[in-house]
């Protein structure tokens, strides 16, 4: 495949991608899954377009539109060719068929062409000069009619109109509309002028005509100036054209009696055909080719606007931030170790045993103070607060040497019970006769704080796993903090 073909192919793909956007908007469909991970976004989009195209069939619809537009343009070319050809016999050659008014010929073919070029230049360089809505509606009607005549079927793609509007907008809209309309305009003008030139050649080849000029309000000087201007180029190219005296003699009613009449006819024919070809047809053909190249270049450089919300969403679909989730090291243990306790019961009137070994786990300063003030009635030594490996080893070592049968553990109800806590408590029960008491410390009643209530439930569940009876669990509310709160409330009040 040549580079040019590839570019055309890429253009078609991009056009189809846009067509799919028209069908899917506002959000892209998630149905066209494939492995896009190893592709760049534009390649992934190309792949998705291929997949989606299998369902949407946008390509054939666009090709059909392209064909219809080409057909319409070609038909109009034929019409203009015929108009150009017939205008010579109808309006140029006199009824007798023996005279051609050169001035009229120039006015008929070159002046409208120049005016049209001026209008074209004005429209080409003016912003918002085109309003395509009526043109789109008109074209939809004409091309729809052409379609019906051509196919004689009424079954259309479900998005026929939407796709046509997009296609029309693409071909004749902001991006390549000016180039496309310019191309068509020059094509039709070229057809018209070509028809006229060919017809003129045919008339001159088959008729002997004399060239004259006629005017009522213009003087001879103006005609002479015009003719001299027109002959400038052919004279440079050594083409036989009428001399100024021939021009003066060509005034109406003056019949050249000289033997050189045939030469003068040929020179006038040369000038007329040359003027038509060089001053009218050639600029149109040059412009036609220029805009043909411009359209090709526009197609080559046609890019999709990826900043549109549709494409940003599509990017997330094709290249999601997360490619895949996977389990690397699966949990093999049964997760059914947890014991569900339906009601968070605890012993509100827990009486601590006289002989015991108390310690705290992960208490902050405030809770530790609360725990110390609670235990001081029963235990003289300050509590050890397990915060790290070192303090944990110290507690385990003291416990093992004390041979205590009752262990009292203080924890903060707000903290999250975990496996570490469970393992430690289980490790503390070094003998079967060891009884563990759990004292939960808090600042609020669980009735007024739902998250605290959930956490209390967690503690009672984990205590059950550590075989601590609910009779040995209590919840202590810090009275100081409560009184502080009340004090604050009073102060605020």
């Amino acid at each position, binding site marked *: 495949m040549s580079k040019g073909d590839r570019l055309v192919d890429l253009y078609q793909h991009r056009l189809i991608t846009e067509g799919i956007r028209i069908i899917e908007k506002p959000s892209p469909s998630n149905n066209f899954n494939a492995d896009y991970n190893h592709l760049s976004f534009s390649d992934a989009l190309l792949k998705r377009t291929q997949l989606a195209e299998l369902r949407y069939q946008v390509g054939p619809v666009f090709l059909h539109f392209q064909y219809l537009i080409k057909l319409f343009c070609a038909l109009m070319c034929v019409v203009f060719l015929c108009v150009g050809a017939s205008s010579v016999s109808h309006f140029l050659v006199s009824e007798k068929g023996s005279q051609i008014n050169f001035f009229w010929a120039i006015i*008929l073919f070159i002046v409208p062409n120049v005016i049209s070029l001026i209008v074209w230049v004005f429209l080409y360089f003016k912003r918002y000069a085109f309003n395509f809505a009526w043109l*789109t509606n008109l074209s939809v009607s004409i091309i729809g009619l052409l379609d019906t005549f051509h196919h004689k079927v009424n079954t259309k793609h479900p998005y026929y109109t939407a796709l046509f509007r997009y296609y029309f907008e693409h071909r004749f809209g902001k991006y390549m509309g000016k180039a496309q309309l310019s191309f068509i305009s020059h094509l039709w003008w070229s057809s018209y002028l070509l028809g006229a030139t060919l017809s003129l050649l045919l008339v001159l080849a088959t008729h002997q005509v004399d060239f004259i000029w006629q005017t009522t309000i213009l003087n001879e000087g103006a005609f002479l100036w015009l003719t001299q201007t027109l002959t400038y180029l052919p004279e440079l190219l050594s083409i036989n054209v009428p001399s100024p005296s021939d021009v003066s003699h060509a005034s109406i009613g003056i019949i050249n009696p000289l033997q050189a009449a045939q030469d003068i006819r040929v020179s006038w024919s040369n000038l007329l055909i040359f003027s038509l070809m060089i001053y009218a047809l050639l600029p149109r053909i040059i412009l036609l080719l220029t805009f043909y190249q411009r359209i090709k270049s526009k197609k080559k450089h046609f890019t999709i606007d990826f900043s549109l919300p549709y494409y940003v969403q599509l990017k997330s679909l094709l290249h999601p*931030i997360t490619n895949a989730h996977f389990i*690397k*090291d*699966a949990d093999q243990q049964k*997760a059914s170790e947890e014991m569900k306790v339906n009601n968070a019961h605890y012993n509100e009137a827990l009486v601590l045993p006289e002989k015991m070994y108390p310690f705290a786990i992960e208490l902050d300063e405030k809770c530790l103070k609360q725990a110390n003030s609670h235990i001081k009635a029963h235990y003289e030594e300050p509590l050890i607060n397990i915060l790290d490996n070192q303090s944990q080893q110290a507690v385990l070592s003291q416990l093992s040497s004390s041979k205590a049968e009752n262990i009292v553990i203080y924890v903060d109800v707000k903290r*999250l019970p975990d496996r570490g806590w469970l393992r430690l408590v289980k490790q503390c029960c070094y003998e079967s006769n060891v009884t563990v008491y759990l004292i939960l410390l808090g600042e609020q009643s669980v009735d007024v704080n739902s998250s605290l209530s959930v956490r209390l439930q967690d503690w009672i569940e984990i205590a059950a796993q550590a075989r601590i009876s609910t009779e040995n669990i209590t919840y202590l509310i810090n009275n100081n903090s409560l009184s502080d709160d009340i004090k604050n409330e009073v102060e605020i009040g």
Partner: protein
Amino acid sequence: MDKQLLSVAVVGHANTGKTSLIRTLLRDASFGEIANKAGTTRHVEGAEIRIDEHQNLVIYDTPGLEDSMHLLNIIDNTPIEDSKFEHKDEIDRLLAFIEREHEFPELNQEIKVLKALLTNDLIFYVIDVREPILGKYRDELKILSYAAKPIIPVLNFIEAGTTNIDNWQAQLARLHLHAFVSFDSVVFRFADEMKIYHKMRTLLAHREEQLEALIQQRQQQWQERESAAQQLIATLLVEAAACRFKADNDEQSISVASEHLQTAIRSLESQTLSQLLALYQFKQQDIDQYDLPIEQGEWELDLFSSDNLQEFGIKVTSNFVKGAGVGVAVDIFAAGMTLGAAAMTGGVMGALWGVKQRYYDEIEASIKGHRYLCADDLTLHVLWARQLSLLSALQQRGHASVNKLSLQHLDSNKDILPKYWSKWLSRARQHPQWVTLNKSDQPKLKEKKVLLIEQITTYLTSLKSN
């Protein structure tokens, strides 16, 4: 071709928000499981973040370190005298311990973490800053240091734990961990996410290119989304302002038209909302929808508004030129017989046709006493403020957030209006054809709509950058 992978293990104590952090980085609320209790994550679960077609970043979520004290005790007492441990260092100690994993079933979860530490390029150590600083965290960090991998402490939930941040920073500094980052997986800030990647780039100098590509990609993605979202909001404003319904001059007709107007604007807002949610990868159930209060205003043609006059001038001129073009074509067909006359007639006809197309409906309505109902300025103002607040809320919402985003409670600041607000609305209101559901036959002037949307989007971009 295999992709180049950069891997990160996210570790930390139980319930510090490891999974939440990953969800937020992945923009994926379906990753892992989150709950307000210990032991929720039990597997080592990975997810790939795509950098480009050749590179991925893999993030591994790990179970919480729930028994670091015991773990440290055992690791420190693990013998490494065996000859197969060449270096006799802490890594060997970890390896020796892992070899004996069957002896410690109670540390099964922690062993998974240790394996993740040894097999990944970088460690995110997630800290819940709301928690008090306890000695066990020092134990955890000590264990992590045995793996000899770069560690980035991530201070999570900074919104709720503001008061504790300084203490944590001081504590981390004592442990020679200065390269920490602050993050909130619920109240998300894109800049914080970028800081994480920048810190990674600093610590993994040999992976600089890969991380630079990641940073670029994430920034581009963020900007693209923001710009697309701004386009959606601008389009909504333009279409909602352009939306109007014709009513006869009686109560029943006005009431029906008013209902149609409300439905149309709510439908436009709902479409935009769905697209915004999709853009930021949230689901419809993440939002608690609340109907926009819509009041209708009345739209009347003001041919003499400066905007209208300008457009009128353009239209008349261009239609005149087009008409004249047609006239010239007629001339050609007539072989110049009527040159000038046809062009002039064509020009006048073209101009009249353009005026008819553009203003016929309004003039007819004015003669027949019909009214056009459209959304009033205040409604559009609320709609605008709501979308801006929604965009801001979506941009700051982490994918770990479990509470619904309520449209009712969005902070819609009604005081700040763009400078060209009235001009935008008036321009949009003159073009009912810009909304498909208006079914207007007026010329589409799509380019003008695109231009107006661009202007509003540019304003939103400048608002954001300020």
